């Protein structure tokens, strides 16, 4: 007898009854409200099905899941996905009546199938293939004509082959209902039902790639992966998306040393079974043609061993001659927890000062508030989905944490309410109330509140399961601290008000947790002039932290610049000593996401130049060697371990790490693919305050927002995302535009603390007045989000030459 634990208990305080039923002579107890199909699945009994999906529910449209119910007032053939379990129910799945019924269903679903499995990308992981076989249908009897459709061009990401459709409606339910997309749906009547757009064109939703995962047949396939591999040939492993700090479960797949696609993994606490298009189609960085794969000293290619020997002597000499300050190790929020911790160990080993784990000082401070102050009230995305009131401060979910936008939509679908305060013209795939507050106005609201603030706090107090979403980049340490007060004020004995912080990098939380709160930042230490060797591990402060010019100037005093990275960043090209490392898909490690959840990922492919690029002419090379071309890169964690000559298994490393950091006690028990456990709440709390600068007259508040695509470094080096990139504009409120005598489409010069830029202006009615909004992407790499409140001057930029 098996008992299925309730995973939805939190949403109701009612005591759940647990009916017991019998399926195929096996007894099981499940929470009330579960269906026969789910109960059978828990017993390991496979009932063929199409339209039922774990996260979409059932609609009973495919009729595949027939079983026979022998009890109750109306015994007989039932759809297992629709019938809730009842106490004492007796069900059989293999009896003649239901088996014959399912075989007939399999037969009619195949009536119009084009029999093109050999050229279909779904082949090998096709639910239609599996269910047809398991239903028992084999030989076609129908002699009439097959119905056909004309396909649509749905853009560069999703390919459509409509003849394969079995009308399960999963696509429309995903795209429209779950993801809130508006440009795709079902059309037609009777046997002409068609799933697509009204007109040809690129799917607009930022979650369009999910069609590929949910369609149980080959109608929707990944166009970027078209004909590249069969699923059984792929090397796949449970991984974590590195594109933002949500930490979605992904299953990347590679073949012939090339990362070819990314599918959604399943994490009920985080992303359920969906991911965004940035995570799915942004994988090009691993096989980027310019990815540095060779260790280099000055302009000489050297072996990694030689590079390590050289590095060791450089560090030792610097420490001996100039003391522990002379070597600065720099970690990164896109490097794994293990790598960052090993940096600390390396510093200890060589007797240098503690490393700086994030080049972006302010983001680091903010992340520390999240990692320490909020640690006992962190919400998961599942909590957001089940909440009834979410207050969002300073976050544009689609740009900063796309899956958060989906979670918000799910709570709105359950009658929840979203109130959003942000200077940007935020769009969400659901209904929400947006108040465009400028950054300074937002700080004011959080600190003093006023009428609006009191009203919001009242709402929080009345809500059953309130969650505050806090944007770290825009609010900064000060804003987050105010929100901490809000959250504690709104908590009571029955329930606490939870907080979902939105951080910047995949491992921002991890780097924040590892480092000591009172610590000098990168620029302070560099500008002290004491640093002789700077070792940057998987980070480029020029692209990932503000004040690149100060960084470059300080670099002049550094004798040795050592870079370890896997991206062709400007810094890695200029390094005196360069050691190639591996991106997360070629490494095993851990990230800690926004919600403080330890997320393990496992190596998917081994480093090396893809076969397509080493082959000469028509086919792969006919020379056989034991050396993998381009196979030099090693995971950064391994490089550091070799440097200090302490190579350990990952499990051993985790044990040490957990001993060193009591909050990471669970680390050794986390497995890839599992939901992952939370870090332990913090004992100490950092206190940081930053004063807001005064606004000079005639200036605008500068709002730098990450672009939806091309802001994080991974997607900047992902060619597949090119069709989604937008060119940089200077967005202003129409009133401001008018006041400055500017018109939409004209050029303007913005003078900021980070340089001046000549950009095309665009008016955005939905944004806060008095703000100048610029998106960070490849065009404006100097403008980094999260640099704190600053002001800018705007002047007309004249006509184009």
């Amino acid at each position, binding site marked *: 007898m098996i008992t299925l634990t309730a995973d939805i208990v939190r949403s109701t305080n009612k005591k759940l009854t647990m009916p017991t039923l019998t399926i195929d002579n096996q007894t099981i107890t499940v929470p009330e409200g579960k269906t026969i199909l789910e109960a059978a699945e828990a017993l390991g009994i496979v009932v063929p099905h199409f339209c039922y999906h774990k996260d979409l529910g059932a609609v009973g449209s495919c009729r595949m899941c027939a079983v026979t119910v022998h009890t109750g007032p109306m015994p007989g053939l039932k759809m297992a996905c629709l019938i809730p379990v009842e106490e004492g129910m007796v069900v059989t799945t293999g009896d003649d009546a239901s088996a014959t019924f399912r075989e007939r269903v399999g037969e009619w679903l195949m009536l119009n199938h*084009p*029999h093109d499995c050999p050229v279909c990308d779904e082949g090998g992981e096709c639910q239609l293939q599996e269910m047809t076989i398991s239903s028992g249908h084999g030989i076609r009897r129908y002699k009439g004509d097959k119905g*056909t*459709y004309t396909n649509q061009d749905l853009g560069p990401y999703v390919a459509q082959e409509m003849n394969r459709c079995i009308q399960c409606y999963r696509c429309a339910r995903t795209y429209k209902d779950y993801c809130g997309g508006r440009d795709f749906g079902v059309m037609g009547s*009777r046997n002409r039902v068609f799933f697509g757009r009204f007109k040809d064109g690129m799917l607009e939703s930022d979650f369009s790639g999910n069609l590929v995962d949910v369609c149980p047949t080959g109608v929707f396939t990944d166009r970027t992966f078209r004909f590249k591999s*069969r699923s059984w*040939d792929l090397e796949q492993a449970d991984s974590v998306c590195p594109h933002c700090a949500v930490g979605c479960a992904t299953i990347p797949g590679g073949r012939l040393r090339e990362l070819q696609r990314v599918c959604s993994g399943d994490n009920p606490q985080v992303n359920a079974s969906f991911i965004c298009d940035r995570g799915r189609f942004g994988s090009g960085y691993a096989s980027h043609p310019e990815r540095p794969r060779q260790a280099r000293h000055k302009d000489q290619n050297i072996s990694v061993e030689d590079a390590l020997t050289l590095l060791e002597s450089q560090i030792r000499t610097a420490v001996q001659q100039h003391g522990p300050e002379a070597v600065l190790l720099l970690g990164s929020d896109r490097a794994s927890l293990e790598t960052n911790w090993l940096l600390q160990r390396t510093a200890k080993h060589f007797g240098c000062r503690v490393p700086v784990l994030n080049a972006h000082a302010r983001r680091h401070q903010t992340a520390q508030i999240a990692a320490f102050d909020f640690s006992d009230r962190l919400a998961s995305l599942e909590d957001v989905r089940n909440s009834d009131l979410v207050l969002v401060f300073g976050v544009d979910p689609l740009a900063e944490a796309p899956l958060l936008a989906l979670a918000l939509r799910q709570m709105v679908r359950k009658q929840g309410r979203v109130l959003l305060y942000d200077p940007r013209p935020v769009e969400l795939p659901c209904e929400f109330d947006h108040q465009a507050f400028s950054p300074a106005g937002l700080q004011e609201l959080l600190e003093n509140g006023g009428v609006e603030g009191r009203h919001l706090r009242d709402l929080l107090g009345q809500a059953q399961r309130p969650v505050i979403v806090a944007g770290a980049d825009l609010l900064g340490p000060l804003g987050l601290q105010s929100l901490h007060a809000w959250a504690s004020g709104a908590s009571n004995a029955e329930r606490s008000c939870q907080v979902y912080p939105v951080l910047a990098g995949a491992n921002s939380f991890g780097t924040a947790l590892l480092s000591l709160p009172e610590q000098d930042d990168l620029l302070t230490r560099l500008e002290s002039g004491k640093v002789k060797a700077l070792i940057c591990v998987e980070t480029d402060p020029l692209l990932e932290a503000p004040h690149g010019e100060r960084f470059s100037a300080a670099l002049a005093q550094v004798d040795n610049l050592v870079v370890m990275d896997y991206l062709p960043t400007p810094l890695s090209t200029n390094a005196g000593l360069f050691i190639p490392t591996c991106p997360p898909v070629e490494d095993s490690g851990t990230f800690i996401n926004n919600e403080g959840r330890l997320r393990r990922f496992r190596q998917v492919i081994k480093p090396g130049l893809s076969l397509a690029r080493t082959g000469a002419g028509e086919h792969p090379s*006919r020379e056989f060697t034991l050396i993998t071309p381009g196979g030099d890169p090693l995971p950064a964690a391994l490089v550091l371990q070799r440097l200090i000559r302490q190579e350990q298994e990952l499990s051993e490393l985790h044990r040490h790490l957990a001993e060193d950091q009591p909050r990471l006690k669970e680390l050794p028990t986390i497995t890839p693919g599992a939901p992952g456990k939370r870090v332990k709440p913090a004992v100490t709390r950092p206190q940081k305050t930053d004063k807001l600068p005064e606004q000079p007259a005639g200036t605008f508040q500068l709002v730098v927002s990450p672009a939806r695509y091309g802001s994080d470094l991974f997607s900047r080096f992902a060619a597949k995302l090119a069709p989604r990139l937008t060119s940089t504009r200077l967005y202003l409120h129409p009133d401001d535009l008018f006041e400055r005598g500017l018109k939409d489409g004209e050029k303007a010069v913005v003078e900021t603390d980070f340089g001046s830029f000549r950009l095309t202006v665009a008016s955005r009615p939905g944004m806060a007045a008095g703000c100048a909004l610029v998106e960070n992407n490849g065009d404006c790499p100097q403008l980094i989000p999260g640099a704190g409140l600053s002001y800018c001057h705007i002047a007309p930029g004249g006509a184009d030459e």
Partner: protein
Amino acid sequence: MHVVRGIRGTLQPFWVTLRNMFRKPVTVQYPEEKQQLPERYRARLILTRDPDGAERCVACHLCSAACPVDCISMQAVEAEDGRRYAAWFRINFTRCIFCGLCTEACPTLAIQVTADFELAGRDLLKLVYEKEDLLVDHCGTNSNYNFYRQSGIGVSAPRGRNPGEAPPADVKDLMP
């Protein structure tokens, strides 16, 4: 009894040898003389063409999945007209055991066996056959079959015009 059996056991082999000494030998003086093999003998593999002269193989990877020794590899690509074909296709005949499972798996009848078993050599690399070495310009057996005419994906005929297909549905039609 033992004695009788012993004597018979000693003499019988001599008798068998004697009897066969004057028969015509079944072995031939290979390689000077060649053996005529049965038509359905399983040896070197070929990639055949469809009756319209196009490559039959659609690079579906089923043969490589079926192959027990993993000696087939390929890469599929798409042609202008939507046809899926193999950009490269490689069989490593140093590994092939001529079991014929690949031909059984092939849904397009592209990969077929021939009776050419003479695949010995000192240079192993010469036995790694590429697509150009495998592709022949005939249909092999089943000279009528063209996969693209049987499957409804609009490559050899426009969509909805293959045998047994209705014309594409007008999805904006609301007639019952």
